C-alpha cells in the first residue's frame, strides 16, 4: 500500500520563476493538505483541498495556489518565486471526517531551492 508520494524530490528555481509540485495521496484518502517547512522550523499550513475545492487556507499570499483532481491527487503552484520560498514542501493526506481531524499522513516532501 503506497503512502503519500510527492514529486519531484528536489528542485532548483530562479527568483521570479514559477513552480508546480505534485502529490498523490495515500490509497483511500480523499483530503490533501500542503505545508511549508523552513529549515529548523515546524511545518506551516498552506491550504487544504477536499472535493476539488480549497477548504481552508493559512497565512500565505495568493502566489501560492493549488488544485485537486478527481483522482484526489493535488498540485501546489507558486508564482513569482522569492528567495524566502526556499523550503521543504510537504503534502499530507487524510480521510474526510465530520470534525476534519483524521490523522494526517505526510509524504517525504519536495525540497525547493530558490536562487
Amino acid at each position, binding site marked *: 500500500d503506497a503512502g*503519500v508520494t510527492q514529486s519531484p524530490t528536489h528542485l532548483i528555481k530562479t527568483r521570479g520563476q514559477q513552480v508546480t509540485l505534485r502529490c498523490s495521496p495515500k490509497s483511500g484518502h480523499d483530503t490533501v*493538505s500542503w505545508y511549508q517547512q523552513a529549515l529548523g*522550523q*515546524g*511545518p*506551516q499550513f498552506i491550504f487544504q483541498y477536499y472535493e476539488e475545492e480549497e*477548504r481552508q487556507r493559512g497565512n500565505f499570499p495568493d502566489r501560492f495556489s493549488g488544485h485537486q483532481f478527481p483522482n484526489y491527487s493535488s498540485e501546489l503552484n507558486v508564482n513569482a518565486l522569492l528567495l524566502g520560498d526556499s523550503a521543504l514542501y510537504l503534502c499530507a493526506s487524510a480521510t474526510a471526517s465530520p*470534525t476534519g*481531524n483524521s490523522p494526517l499522513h*505526510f509524504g517525504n516532501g519536495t525540497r525547493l531551492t530558490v536562487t
Partner: protein
Amino acid sequence: QQQVKQSPQSLIVQKGGISIINCAYENTAFDYFPWYQQFPGKGPALLIAIRPDVSEKKEGRFTISFNKSAKQFSLHIMDSQPGDSATYFCGGTSYGKLTFGQGTILTVHP
C-alpha cells in the same frame, strides 16, 4: 500568532532514560493533539495522538499526558533508544488544520 509552544528545543538523553517534551497551546478550538516524529530527509510520521477528553494515552514506550485546564500536554518516551534520535513535533488540530510546535531535536546517546 504562535499557537503551540514546544520545549525544550533540544534534548540529550542516555540510552534507557526517559525523554520528556512539553507543549502548550492557546487555541481552545483545538480538539486533536498529535505528536509527529521526523527523521532527516523524511516527512513527519504520526507517533501518537490524543483527544482533549482523555488525560493520558499510552502506546508502547510512548505516553501522552494531557492537562486541558492548563492547556498543556507532554510526550514521555520511556527506555529511550538511539533509534529514537529524531525531531519531534507536537501539534493541535482544528477542522483538519494542523498547527505544529517548533520542534524538539532529541539525541539519545548509547
